[in-house]
């Protein structure tokens, strides 16, 4: 036992000595939370548009000022001719153009009544649709008010209620996801590098001739990272709660317990990777490509799984982070207890056993070099 503790101490000193990596391990979650919380959002706050007014009469002026008075649209350019429009799109200066009046070159209309043409830059479809829905709502209402007698226009208003997240805070989505990504990063990536580094530098053989058993070596390497990851998950939860008001409606101990489970899953993955190679660079690349990229992109962290093609949705089932995100979202946002998430928890436990099993098999021959 004393040998084991001495070994854990050695590993901890190694880690603490490397202050650059340490800053990144603790700094990265904080910076990412700040970025995701304050900077990254899909909500459209304003859109730059251009207007070409071919009529220049009182009605068209009223329409223009109605559009601009919403505060959502920022008038970037007031066009004088149709040909000025395309370059502005190409240079990315405007997201939409509003053309008021009878047809100009290229836009055909047989109707003699004044027409309004909306040109949208559809490179980013959601932005285009959001702009379209606001603009056509404004134009539609304006039309009806000005041109038909008001007794005849039946206006239907919609009142929207946003459930579970009334302020549409994106933090509800990303804080759980961020926990999964950071835990996976620290546990799997760092463990795999740490073990592979010893192999690459040759110090693994020195460890093997020491009185420590191979199992103790692996455990000793893994324990400091368990502690680091756990501290990280607490940091993320605390920041989430106090800076972004992400609630924890469920049982805190259940939450922390599931975090520990996921940490062990990630660690066993890291060990499995390190058993496959002796080169640090290869270990890092495998960890990044086969682990981080899928975790970030396919776990439901940024891109909702429901929107993916069916084949990919099936693929996402093998990614541990996906199940973990479901678990913590349910605990934090809906206050679910174990009875709602036992299925996902069991899947994570199963995956962990599988990874450990493979590692044990591969390690027995590798370490015995």
């Amino acid at each position, binding site marked *: 036992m004393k040998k084991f503790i001495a070994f854990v101490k050695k590993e901890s000193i190694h880690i603490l000595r490397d202050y650059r990596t340490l800053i990144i391990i603790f700094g990265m979650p904080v910076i990412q939370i700040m970025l995701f919380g304050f900077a990254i959002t899909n909500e459209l706050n304003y859109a730059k548009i251009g207007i070409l007014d071919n009529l220049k009469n009182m009605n068209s002026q009223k329409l223009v000022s109605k559009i601009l008075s919403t505060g959502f649209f920022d008038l970037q350019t007031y066009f004088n001719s149709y040909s000025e429009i395309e370059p502005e799109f190409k240079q990315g200066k405007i997201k939409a153009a509003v053309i008021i009046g009878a047809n100009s070159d290229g836009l055909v*209309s047989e109707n003699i009544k004044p027409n309004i043409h909306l040109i949208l830059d559809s490179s980013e479809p*959601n932005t285009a649709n959001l702009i379209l829905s606001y603009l056509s709502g404004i134009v539609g209402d304006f039309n009806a008010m000005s041109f038909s007698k008001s007794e005849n226009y039946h206006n*239907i208003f919609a009142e929207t209620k946003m459930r579970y997240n009334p302020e549409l805070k994106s933090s509800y989505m990303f804080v759980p996801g961020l926990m999964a990504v950071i835990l996976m990063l620290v546990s799997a990536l760092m463990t795999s590098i740490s073990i592979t580094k010893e192999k690459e530098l040759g110090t693994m053989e020195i460890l093997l001739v020491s009185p420590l058993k191979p199992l103790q070596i692996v455990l000793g390497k893994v324990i400091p990272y368990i502690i680091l990851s756990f501290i990280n998950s607490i940091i993320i939860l605390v920041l989430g709660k106090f800076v972004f008001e992400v609630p924890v409606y469920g049982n805190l101990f259940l939450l922390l317990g599931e975090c520990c489970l996921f940490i062990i899953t990630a660690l066993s993955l890291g060990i499995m990777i390190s058993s496959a190679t002796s080169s640090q660079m290869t270990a890092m690349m495998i960890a990044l490509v086969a682990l981080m*990229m899928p975790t970030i992109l396919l776990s439901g962290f940024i891109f909702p799984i429901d929107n*993916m093609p069916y084949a990919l949705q099936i693929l996402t089932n093998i990614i541990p982070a996906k199940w973990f995100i479901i678990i913590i979202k349910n605990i934090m946002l809906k206050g679910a207890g174990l009875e709602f998430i036992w299925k996902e928890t069991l899947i994570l436990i199963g995956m962990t056993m599988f990874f450990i099993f493979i590692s044990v098999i591969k390690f027995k021959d590798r370490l015995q070099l």
Partner: protein
Amino acid sequence: MKKIYAVIIKEFKQIFRDKGMLPLIFVMPLIQLIILTNAATFEVKNISFYAVDYDNSPISREIISKYNGSPYFDFYGSSTNINYAENLMRLNKIKFILVIPDRFEKNLTIENKERIQFIINAIDGSTAGVINAYAFSILTDFKTNMDNNFNVKSNLYGINGQSAVNHYNWYNETQDYKFYMTPGILVILVTIIGMFLSAMSLAKEKEIGTIEQLNVSPVLKYELIIGKLIPVLIISLFELTFGIIVAKLFFGTPFRGGVINLYSLTVIYLIGVLSFGILISTIAETQQQAMFLSWFFMVVFILLSGIFTAVENMPLWAQTLTKFIPLSYYISSVRNILLKGAGFSDMLGTYAILCGFGIIITSAAVLKFKKTA
């Protein structure tokens, strides 16, 4: 000149000697491009919705069938039980509840205005925003195409002297999200490979010890750096080409701009990025640190540059930060070239800025790299 050439040959040999590197450089991007382009989408579709209709009049049924007929919404069911509907939402069976109040038709006839309710599952805030926009669009469509007797016309040109509103989707008529995401993923791939390879190369030499041998050789500082940069540049450009071919073949991604424009922009951009990698490797002592530092900066750059989420939606301080990241200029230019056919004259400013970045970062890397270290 001969010395630079010698360093280039050495670098190429070292990269390809590592059996693990080759599949990683060539197979990984392929897989990523294919899988990620399919996964990366913010498109919202198949929104399952439930209708709670307390009025049950012709017009309320008309409204519900309009939503039902929309390609965005999937009808789940309807009843007059709001609690049942809310429960369905709690269980994640539906995302949208349409509520039409009692006496809807009567009130609309008498007072000329009435309200209906949209209840949306907002755990995913941005999806909720999109659902709201769709629901609102359908409602607008409905009410402007309705005449005094509540007959709904499906004619596009409006009635009662109203103006018609026509809309045109430029550059992406089918609203395929892949057109937006593929350039982004391409850019990420090229940047990751470039930055990692250049950062790791010096760090590995430091860690194994061969840096000392390099330091006592007659190779000058700048010759070493140029010699290390060029192979990575060539590999990155190869990645870009490979990626574009795959994107065109598999996803039909358009390429409406000039090839020379794209490549010259990429070269200038890459010089800045690769020098940044070298700068990182002068700070790091081990490969692990180099990798972590590169990873850290990559994540920050990718998030802030507007690849996945638009820069316009960010608060002012973030938008200012974005101006200091070469990646943000590059990704918007690549999108403009590929999707909108932007030409050289449309991006003179971008060229100037990227050149500036390249010069500053490369000088910093050359200055920081001391042969005596």
